[in-house]
């Protein structure tokens, strides 16, 4: 067969294509490959220690706060809001790079997430009503994270 093919190589390629198509049509269609998924796929994976992935390579889906990546120990100053001055314009909500400002609809006021605020002061700079103020983090006794390693 190979010798014949080599001989016919010089001839028109159209013929070859046609014959191939005919051969494929005559074959029965292959069955779809079935993959059985385990019920809890994430819980069933066991990795040996020498092939373990580094810190942060696998995280839970981003549907909630990632407790692995608390960044509040980057903060030197903290934004403190004056609720009387605040006009609920949500500029801080838009400006915050870490989505630390959210609107509490029940109490109708802005809420600040201390766990992920890095103290970048973008919200303070952007606030049109001057309701936000930078206060040194050491003035407060709460907001302590005390991580064992830098990150």
């Amino acid at each position, binding site marked *: 067969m190979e010798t014949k093919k080599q001989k016919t190589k010089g001839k028109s390629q159209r013929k070859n294509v046609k014959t191939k198509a005919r051969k494929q049509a005559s074959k029965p269609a292959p069955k779809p490959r079935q993959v059985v998924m385990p019920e809890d796929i994430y819980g069933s994976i066991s990795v040996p220690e020498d092939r373990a992935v580094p810190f942060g390579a696998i995280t839970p889906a981003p549907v909630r706060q990632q407790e692995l990546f608390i960044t509040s*120990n980057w903060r030197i100053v903290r934004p403190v809001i004056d609720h009387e001055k605040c006009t609920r314009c949500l500029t801080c909500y838009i400006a915050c790079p870490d989505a630390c400002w959210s609107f509490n609809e029940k109490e109708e006021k802005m809420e600040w997430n201390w766990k992920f605020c890095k103290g970048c002061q973008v919200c303070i700079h952007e606030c049109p009503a001057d309701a936000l103020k930078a206060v040194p983090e050491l003035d407060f006794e709460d907001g302590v994270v005390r991580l064992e390693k830098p990150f």
Partner: protein
Amino acid sequence: MAKVTEITVWTRGVVMDKEARDVASAFAQAAKMEGKFIQAFDNYEDLPDRVLVTTRKYVRISTEEIQMKYLYVNEHPDVVVIVEPTIVKGINVLRGMPEGGLLVINTNRPIEYMLKFIPNADILGAVATVDADGISGVKTVDFSGSEGGVDASGLGAGIAAPIVGAMAKVTGMVKKENLAKVVSDVAAMERGYQQVHIQKFHRPRSVYFWGG
């Protein structure tokens, strides 16, 4: 091998990187002038260091040649220096410290207030505070990206000078005269040496006597 004194300097990445490097380099150079063997090096583990992220610098001082070659972290620091005081809220700065260690903080707040944020302070031998920001009057914020790499102001131009002065007074490892040859802001170093506040605890250690 003789006792190796390990010093860890905690700082904020990029914005105060040069200050902490100056603390480490100046203190080590002054110790070298007194015939001691030293190692002073930057962080290798806390990378990538970004703006305001906590990073470390390390110093090792010994009377004999230091054999710790391929260890890039001071696992058991005898002295911990904190260049930016808010770090005590975010990091367990005393991790690995043997009993009777020394903590030096750059702050103008009272020592009792700072100890509120350090629940494992009972292993400390002494705490010292120096108001380096107030003494040097320099807020060292440098967003140029060079991180002091192309800085021509020399060692200890900013808040590093009062901190090394305070360290010399409290640890007693280097002499003030030798530090004066190293740092560029000698007056600030002198004031740091004189204005350091120290509080000792009843935990004496045979190797060190903090307080000069």
